[in-house]
């Protein structure tokens, strides 16, 4: 067994173990942390496959941004476990059916008859100066430039759509004008009034 294989089995073990722990943990915050660990293991396996750009992107996008928002939401929610469990038996048959369909589909698509060792050969090792990111960029910006730009436009539309969804009824929104706040002068807020003190003769 070579050192690469040992690393592969270690990372695979952590990948599977943390994924299972994610599903079975009862605490939502712990589940998110196990999901992060499984992302890390997946990234490590990709690095073993010389796909370091994809691996770093996985960590940057999913671990660095998406899962932060997940944790953010979980902290704000006060999850009541009893209401979640109340309809468990009612939903169980449907859940099992969906799970069975997903398993069958995934075995058909990703199983041995599609990606078996006799169909897909092991990728060849590249030389030390092989640059994964250069190769990827060459493909992305020459051959696949239109699909790439289309994907970018799609994301932009998604951003605009989500912003317009939360920005309905413009009239009722309360907002501060920061430039007004910054430019405020002392004379706008404080009025100095000179009061003449009555002299002794008036008394």
């Amino acid at each position, binding site marked *: 067994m070579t050192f690469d294989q040992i690393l592969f089995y270690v990372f695979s073990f952590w990948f599977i173990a943390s994924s299972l722990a994610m599903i079975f943990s009862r605490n939502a915050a712990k589940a998110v942390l196990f999901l992060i660990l499984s992302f890390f293991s997946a990234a490590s396996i990709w690095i073993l496959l010389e796909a370091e*750009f994809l691996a770093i992107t996985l960590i940057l996008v999913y671990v660095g*941004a998406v899962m932060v928002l997940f*944790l953010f939401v979980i902290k704000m929610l006060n999850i009541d476990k009893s209401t979640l469990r109340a309809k468990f038996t009612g939903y169980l048959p449907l859940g099992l059916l969906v799970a069975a369909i997903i398993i069958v589909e995934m075995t058909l698509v990703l199983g041995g008859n599609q990606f078996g060792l006799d169909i897909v050969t092991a990728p060849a090792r590249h030389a030390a100066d092989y*640059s994964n990111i250069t190769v990827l960029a060459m493909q992305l910006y020459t051959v696949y430039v239109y699909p790439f730009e289309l994907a970018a436009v799609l994301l932009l539309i998604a951003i605009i759509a989500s912003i317009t969804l939360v920005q309905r009824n413009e009239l009722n929104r309360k907002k501060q004008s920061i430039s007004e706040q910054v430019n405020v002068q002392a004379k706008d807020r404080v009025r100095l009034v000179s009061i003449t003190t009555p002299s002794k003769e008036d008394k």
Partner: protein
Amino acid sequence: MVLWQSFVELVHELIPWFDGSIATILIILIKAIALVIPLMLVVAYFTYAERKVIGYMQLRIGPNRVGPKGWLQPIADALKLMTKEIIFPTKANIYLFLLAPILAIAPAIAVWAVIPFDEGIYVANLDISLLYVLAIGSIGVYGIILAGWASNSKYPLLGALRSASLLVSYEIVIGFALVTVVMIAGSVNLNDIVMAQKGGVMHWYWIPLFPMMIIFFISALVETNRAPFDVVEGESEIVGGTHVEYSGMTFAVFFLAEYANMILMAVLAVIMFFGGWHSPFEGIPVVESMFAWVPGIVWLLAKTSFFMFLYLWVRATFPRFRYDQIMRLSWKVFLPWTIVWIFVVALMTQLKIGPWF
């Protein structure tokens, strides 16, 4: 360098298991220790420098009791923190409570693996080292979020909520600001970025990317939770933010992580915009040969010290920002500026303006 090469070969000869993989790991471990110990010392004396500098700026003396001129103060602080009791809040989630400081310090140190200190002096020469810095740097936020959540206390939770939203927004700004550097250098390898700035002060990227440099420095202040953007701690509003429930060594670990991140951001600013290990006298006829004997790492550390001093200067000068104003600064001021500057840099690259392209 020759000595080091022969040492590496010796280790490989002594430990030939797994085609030398064990020996490689051992070499990396030695390099990591050689990096982390000086880093921790710098962190310790950076806290001393901070107290002294801010002290003098506020017409005080600062620490001067322990050792000559207070030089042993950081060591006394470290001893005090190590011997203090660690208090666990009764209703805290103990595992996550202890995991949080580890998650804060681990990325703060791991990022240093790809920082080049001189030509050929680094722990790892990654092809995508800039992306690695951004990716691992973004993990540090988990330490703060978990600390806030696991403490099961009001103020830490508020601090964690603030930090999560702040860090996510400013990571985007930092990413965009560094895209301009990558566009000019044509590489995401930190070594290549420094090598592309060879040839004197005029060749460094702070001239074509001047606004990006300022945006990067301010965003670095936010990312490291430093004044005037330290709303995560914000002692006047939310007591001590995420650190409220932490004491003794658990607090010290957060402290170490914060300062290691500050130094990292200073080094990154130097590598990106100020020519890394290159001498500022390059290209000037007489002075260049006069300073040719100075090793590159000295220049790097000198420039970094300047940025570290800027951190302290800024802290002693500005009052704290309001939270919503920081958010506005990120999304409505910095982000449009960075996007505009990406187009400016694209134009400059096409027209080949200046010595940078």
